[in-house]
């Protein structure tokens, strides 16, 4: 009796704490939902623990839905019936042990549980086929036995997973194969059965000549990527063994689609899925459970894909990726991710590297130089003034990458929102715009701006897009601008031009040095350091900023240090071509001005 009272007192204390700190209302009236007060993701609770408890109760109780939010030390169980919830509560409240110290688990009934489910908005990529149960359980076992290996004799151990190659070795530096160096080990005969079966399924694609075997332990994944276009053919196959997994597909238009790949499933990538989407696996020990539900839409039932807040544990998964090698430039019709598209001197940079590069050589640098930078930017640029002339009262103007706000107009009859990523520059901007009635400042990232679609009559984006280090990201930035424009709205976008011969930038006495130029390696990428005031020799480079400190209101005479800003300098037509790739955006004019390429574009009325 005493023990029971103690448990109840403890339980009440936990409930009160949940209420005051998290706003979770516990109830004494039993229902199907239970909150575990002192156990959650942050305390290391895993779903297997719950499963074990349920199984010890009775084998025919359905395992409840389990919601453990990230960073929380409580979690929820959603039982199918109140009866089961009561049974669980009565059996385990204050009794089940959550750790080696014997800490008891406390719980309470709750009415409301968080709903973290979301509906997947997009269809699967075109050209993606999933042939479930492509092989039998026996065949799977056989293949696992054949391809699995011991930890010690791994041929190649990548950071995230273990790999082995047949036919040709996949080279991770260049993401291709060396056709002159075939491996002694060809794709083993044990795979032969797959090719005839594939043909029976209507895929007449022949026999591949390269195989990469990946072994993923729970917690391991692979960053988002597209298999390089030119070294491999138009079909890629992936056979999953041992565990299901959720693969995330990303399109450069911003669409993301999680796809459940069951074990024994053969995944086929063709067309868009092969060439225009990136795919990856998140490094985690679990996956969300994805359900297909039928909902009524008008008179029809429509199937929707729901990513639930419930999870399932991953097992070790072995994937067999089969490719067809080829040589010569890629012939695909999907240019964004294609390595055969001419991109000046350097190949396009992968997304993860691009974002690291920008963090290091754009965002951090601007934070450091904000004060000094701001003293060098006073007046609005004449072309901006010209573009904004005649803006009617009541207009909404977004200045994205506003810097210190020098382009914000001294007007009291329009709304001007200055968006900027650097907090240092934003503080300058806030001061500068303080006295302007319709001006406001916002910290944002142009790729994910946090503003409503179609909210702007006019957008200006001055000297910003040259800081994005991959074509996909530059395109995404312009897509974001297009989304923010109302139909009929206009944008002025300017970037640094590679050609500086028609500007004041060049210093006649200085020569660019191509022979002994300095290179800096950022994440495996060699970037040349530009010699200021000389003609650009590359498209992707680092431009030094000689930082001078400000004390009082004075700039010191000598530079303290040199910081390197990343730039992608633009070729003629490169910016306008990029704008033309954005659906619904129409280029009105494109011109060169003082070392910059500028585009004025308009959002189509019909889209």
């Amino acid at each position, binding site marked *: 009796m005493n023990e029971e009272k103690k448990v109840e007192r403890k339980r009440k204390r936990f409930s009160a704490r949940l209420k005051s700190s998290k706003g979770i209302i516990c109830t004494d009236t039993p229902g199907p939902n239970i909150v575990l007060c002192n156990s959650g993701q942050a305390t290391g609770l895993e779903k297997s623990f719950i499963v074990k408890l349920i199984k010890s109760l009775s084998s025919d109780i359905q395992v409840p839905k389990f919601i453990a939010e990230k960073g929380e030390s409580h979690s929820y169980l959603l039982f199918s019936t109140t009866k089961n919830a009561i049974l669980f509560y009565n059996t385990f409240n204050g009794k089940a042990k959550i750790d080696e110290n014997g800490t008891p688990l406390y719980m309470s009934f709750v009415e409301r549980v*968080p709903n*973290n489910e*979301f*509906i997947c*908005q997009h269809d699967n990529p075109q050209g993606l086929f999933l042939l479930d149960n492509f092989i039998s359980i026996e065949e799977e076992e056989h293949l696992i036995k054949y391809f699995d290996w011991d930890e010690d004799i791994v041929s190649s151990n990548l950071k995230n997973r273990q790999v082995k190659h047949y036919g040709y070795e996949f080279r991770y530096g260049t993401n291709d194969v060396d056709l002159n160096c075939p491996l002694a080990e060809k794709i083993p005969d044990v795979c032969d059965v797959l090719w005839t079966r594939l043909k029976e399924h209507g895929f007449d694609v022949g026999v591949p000549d390269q195989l990469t075997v990946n072994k993923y332990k729970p917690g391991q994944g692979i960053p988002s990527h597209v298999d390089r276009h030119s070294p491999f053919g138009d079909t890629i196959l992936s056979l999953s063994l041992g565990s299901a997994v959720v693969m995330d597909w990303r399109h450069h238009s*911003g669409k*993301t689609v999680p796809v459940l790949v069951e074990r024994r499933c053969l995944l086929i990538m063709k067309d868009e899925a092969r060439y225009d989407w990136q795919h990856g696996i998140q490094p985690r020990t679990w996956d969300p459970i994805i359900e297909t539900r039928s909902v009524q839409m008008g008179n029809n039932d429509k199937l929707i894909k729901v*990513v639930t807040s419930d999870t399932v544990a991953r097992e070790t998964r072995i994937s067999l990726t089969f490719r067809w090698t080829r040589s010569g430039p890629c012939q695909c019709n999907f240019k964004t991710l294609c390595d055969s598209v001419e991109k000046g001197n350097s190949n396009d940079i992968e997304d993860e590297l691009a*974002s690291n590069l920008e963090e290091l050589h754009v965002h951090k640098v601007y934070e450091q130089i904000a004060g000094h930078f701001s003293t060098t930017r006073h007046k609005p640029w004449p072309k901006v003034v010209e573009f904004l002339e005649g803006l*009617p*009262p*009541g207009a*909404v103007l977004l200045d994205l990458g506003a810097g210190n706000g020098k382009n914000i107009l001294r007007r*009291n*009859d*329009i*709304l001007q*929102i200055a968006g900027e*990523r650097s*907090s240092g520059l*934003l*503080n300058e901007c*806030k001061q500068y715009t303080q006295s302007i*009635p*319709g001006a*406001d*400042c*916002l*910290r*944002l*990232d142009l*790729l*994910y*701006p*946090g*503003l*409503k679609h179609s*909210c702007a009559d006019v957008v200006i984006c001055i000297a910003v897009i040259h800081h994005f280090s991959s074509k996909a990201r530059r395109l995404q930035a312009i897509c974001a601008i297009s989304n923010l424009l109302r139909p009929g709205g206009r944008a002025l976008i300017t970037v640094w031009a590679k050609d500086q011969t028609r500007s004041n930038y060049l210093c006649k006495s200085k020569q660019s040095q191509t022979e002994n130029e300095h290179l800096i390696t950022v994440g495996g990428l060699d970037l040349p350091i530009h010699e200021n005031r000389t003609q650009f020799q590359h498209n992707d480079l680092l431009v030094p900023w000689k930082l001078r400190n400000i004390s009082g209101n004075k700039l010191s005479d000598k530079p303290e240090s040199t910081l390197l800003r990343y730039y992608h300098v633009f070729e003629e037509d490169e910016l306008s071509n990029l704008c033309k790739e954005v659906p619904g955006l129409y280029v009105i004019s494109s011109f060169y001005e003082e070392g910059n390429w500028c585009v004025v574009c308009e959002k189509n009325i019909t889209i």
Partner: protein
Amino acid sequence: MKLITHNMLTSKCLKGVTTGYPLSIKATNVKVTEVDFNPEFITRIIPKLDWDVLWSAADSIGHSEGLPKTVEPKFEDDEEFLKKAHRVLLEIEVEEGHLTCPESGRQFPISKGIPNMLLTEAEVQ
């Protein structure tokens, strides 16, 4: 952050969030500064705003008093109304506090009058 700006903010970029609008406001410091009244600006900007959202935002930080819940058809002739709208749109600023996504609960801090809408790559769609 002025309430006119709040009217356009969304957390839709967050993974799993479908509309992310409107963001709720929790203000710990609100500043009121008098600025020039321009009736033409107010008249022309009102049709571009979500008035319900503006009203609720003003209400949530204790500044809805006297502000009509709906916009009357001939509001442009009603100077008293325009002045009230002017005040709520441009003169009231949230200096410190945070915004909250209605779907995910993700908070966006407001500091020195500037909302921080930055997201990490892991959070975006």
